[in-house]
């Protein structure tokens, strides 16, 4: 059950710098840990987060095994026009999760 929390301001003035915060539910298993029996726990991480605004990519991050569970990423952008942010997380074992958020720019 993947769930994401995305925080985008609902309104912004044109040209304003806005912060976008994302929190994704994921165990981020490093692939380096072993069970009590000595067997390697297979790697299971998110490998990338992409954010598109009205279809155009505005932010992308690659994630690696040293990143904590439930990765929280925030970034800044400039509010240019009203529209829709679309977020996509991609990871190991075919993991794909999406979220979206709308902003109205005045």
């Amino acid at each position, binding site marked *: *059950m993947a*769930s*994401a*929390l*995305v*925080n985008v301001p609902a309104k912004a003035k044109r040209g304003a710098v806005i912060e976008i*915060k994302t*929190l994704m*539910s994921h*165990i*981020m298993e490093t692939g380096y840990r072993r069970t009590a029996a000595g067997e390697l726990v297979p790697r299971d991480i998110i490998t990338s987060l992409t954010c598109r605004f009205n279809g155009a990519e505005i932010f992308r991050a690659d994630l690696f095994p040293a990143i*904590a*569970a*439930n990765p*929280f990423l925030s970034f800044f952008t400039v509010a240019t026009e009203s529209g829709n942010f679309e977020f996509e997380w991609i990871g190991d074992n075919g993991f794909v999760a999406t979220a979206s958020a709308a902003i109205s720019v005045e």
Partner: protein
Amino acid sequence: MSGWRAILAVAVAAVIAALPAHAAEIPTDARRSGTTFMSSETKAMQDDDSANPGMLSVLDGEALWNAKAGDAGKACADCHGDGSVSMTGVAARYPALDPALGRPVDLEGRINLCRTRHQQASPFGNESRELLALSAFIGRQSRGQPITAGDDPALAPSVARGHDLFMQRQGQLDLACANCHDDNWDKHLAGSAITQGQPTGYPVYRLEWQSMGSLSRRIRGCMTGVRAQAYDFGSPDMVALELYLMSRAKGMAMETPAVRP
């Protein structure tokens, strides 16, 4: 626990054990939530619902609340309605008496009793994602509410039992809960604040665990730390200790889902 930490813990424990136990309870106005011992970064994470990983569990719990389960085909919502209304203040009064069992149960125990009795479903495992999600969702509805657990006079024997357990030295390090959490909460153990052990925010998202965890899990961690045999999840002694801790924090505000280091 790494070697140096174990050695340090033993050394500190030896110092603490040599001190007389004050057996002095913390005055009501000197009680402090674990939040007040945290770094500003961890506090900021707890206070921002879009940065608090515990809120992911709350979201999961809300979905489970509305999902039909078991042979009865009933969801929590079918009996209890809108959880954000019906569950206000509920977590703040747990552990509470279960009349059929004749003893108190904690919130996790109550959820599993509801599953077996009313949903005719199998109980969730201890510390399972589902059980933590539902208790986080229910706990979230009490955020900001004062803790009232232990108000029921019928619970007095369990509160007293919990108090005895809190005061009782145990384990190879021969430490009682009170030796740290009543007598030395203003000091540090290794690099970490000892804190008063006020259970205001459970289930919590603990950064060390990288996951949610219940009060039982936290207590079991402490007990393993003093090399004692940890109480089983849901056992009468575990629930009595949880009940005493909640009654000791009576009137303090609930913070579920809290973040802890």
